[in-house]
């Protein structure tokens, strides 16, 4: 597959608001090249004023006419600054970056499993392949506030929270274990313990299982070699070889 060109641009913030019902924030901006060429599982590097490094975020959605949407949680210095920025203020964006989830021609059904902010790429997947793949969506979080209001989520979504404040009480894999699920491809993004449970849960499945991983990143584009992980087939760089890996390749680092 020929690698597509990446776009670097200064963009104005269109929306930067709390997602109703949650502590999560939604950021959107207008960047048609990125909007038109991004695939689910790919990410962008956002340059925030005052930060030395750009910050990687999965693409949660792209809208017609070129709008890109990101979902984020405030966890540190950069996301705090970002959360205080107003509409019309300028950030930079580089993308689309990384490989994205891979789908096979014959795939008709799949399970999408998102945990925490890892719900972003699976929501993009559900949306992007809506007409092609029938996906069953499972989302988990520690508590209700770390998920968007259910009215904003696709129909048929199943939700779990560790503290039981929304949906099933427990983790998302326990939720899945309670159902009789026929094997099908799995695409997932979330905390490592969740991915590990998914791996165990699906260990008899012969289907494609792909995980989108996070590491701390420098450049996001292969320039700094800061984002290595040890896979079954040797050292890889999450920003260029990933962030999506076959689950079996990365079982040792979960």
């Amino acid at each position: 597959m020929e690698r597509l060109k990446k776009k670097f641009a200064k963009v104005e913030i269109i929306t930067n608001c709390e997602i109703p019902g949650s502590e999560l924030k939604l950021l959107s901006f207008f960047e048609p090249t990125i909007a038109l060429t991004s695939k689910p599982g790919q990410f962008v590097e956002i340059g925030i004023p005052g930060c030395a490094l750009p910050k990687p975020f999965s693409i949660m959605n792209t809208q017609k006419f070129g709008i890109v949407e990101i979902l984020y949680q405030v966890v540190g210095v950069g996301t705090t600054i970002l959360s205080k920025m107003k509409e019309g203020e300028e950030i930079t964006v580089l993308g689309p970056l990384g490989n994205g989830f891979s789908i096979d021609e014959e795939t008709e059904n799949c399970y999408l499993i998102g945990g925490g902010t890892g719900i972003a790429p699976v929501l993009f997947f559900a949306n992007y392949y809506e007409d092609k793949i029938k996906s069953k969506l499972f989302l988990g979080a520690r508590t209700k506030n770390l998920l968007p209001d259910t009215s904003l989520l696709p129909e048929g979504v199943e939700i779990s929270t560790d503290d039981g404040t929304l949906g099933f009480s427990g983790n998302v894999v326990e939720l899945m274990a309670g159902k009789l699920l026929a094997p099908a491809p799995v695409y997932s993004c979330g905390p490592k313990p969740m991915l590990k449970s998914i791996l165990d849960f699906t260990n008899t499945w012969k289907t494609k299982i792909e995980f989108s991983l996070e590491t701390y990143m420098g450049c996001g584009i292969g320039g700094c070699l800061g984002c290595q992980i040890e896979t079954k087939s040797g050292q890889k760089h999450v920003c260029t070889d990933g962030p999506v890996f076959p689950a079996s390749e990365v079982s040792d680092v979960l």
Partner: protein
Amino acid sequence: MSFSPAITFLDKEYSSPILGASGTFGNGDIYKDLLNYSKIGGFVTKAVTAQPRAGNPGQRIFETSGGVLNSIGLENDGLANFIEQKLPEFEKYDCHIWVNVSGNSPEEYINIIETIGEHDFIAGFEINVSCPNVAHGGMRFGASADQVRSLTSRIRVRTNKPITIKLNPNVIDIVEIAKAAKDGKAHAITVSNTFLGMEIDVHKKQPVLGNVTGGYSGKPIFPLALRCVWQIRKEIDIPIIGCGGITSGLDGIKMLMAGASLLQVGTSTLKNPRALEDISNEMSDWAEKNGYSSFSEIIGVAQKND
């Protein structure tokens, strides 16, 4: 007459004084769609070592205090791969390419330089005697004037390409080390590599970086690197490639005023892939507005006013 950003360095014309610093620019392939290489001076490759190196385990890069800590640990595919895979691409890049060389012994440096040879599309070799991130690596050489002098003079006679010695700034007297490089007949010196720092994760109660310490780069080190360039230029006459914390056109101008003849920008590119062009343009705008007709007029001017 309009301003020209071109500058002559070691008898070659560079279309801008700004080069991409080693380790932040890959080997040129990554930024080719994002940057117009004919508008920058060039770049320095990621360090090449004789054998492939995996680099350091654990977390390798971290933002802190407005700068960046890294402990990549010289990850690279080794000399053979460099020659087969990377070198042939250089022809396509319309700018000057310096090869950053790292080794555990003088023999390793010499081996790399001789094996690469007098390649047409290489501007010269940058001898990394200063990587803080390898236990038995370049740091040893960079700290002692005697070793720098001897390494430089041994390398010098093995190639007709220019060599620049990239200094370790974590020393009490950087002028002494620069003198050693000059005595060893280096064509230039690169001033400088990163400053040794670390960070702690209070929740994990352990160092953030897998390698514990790392090289500190970016904006916060600018006053430190500028001081190194100034001290050296004040005492000795050797072309200096200024490097460390340049994040704006004004920073570049200051480095020239302190006495650098060419500049490298590293960390800025990580956030802004177009930093090399942006900084170069800001420098040109400033210089033109202030009545200069070329950057060479600016080199060392602050030394005269001291």
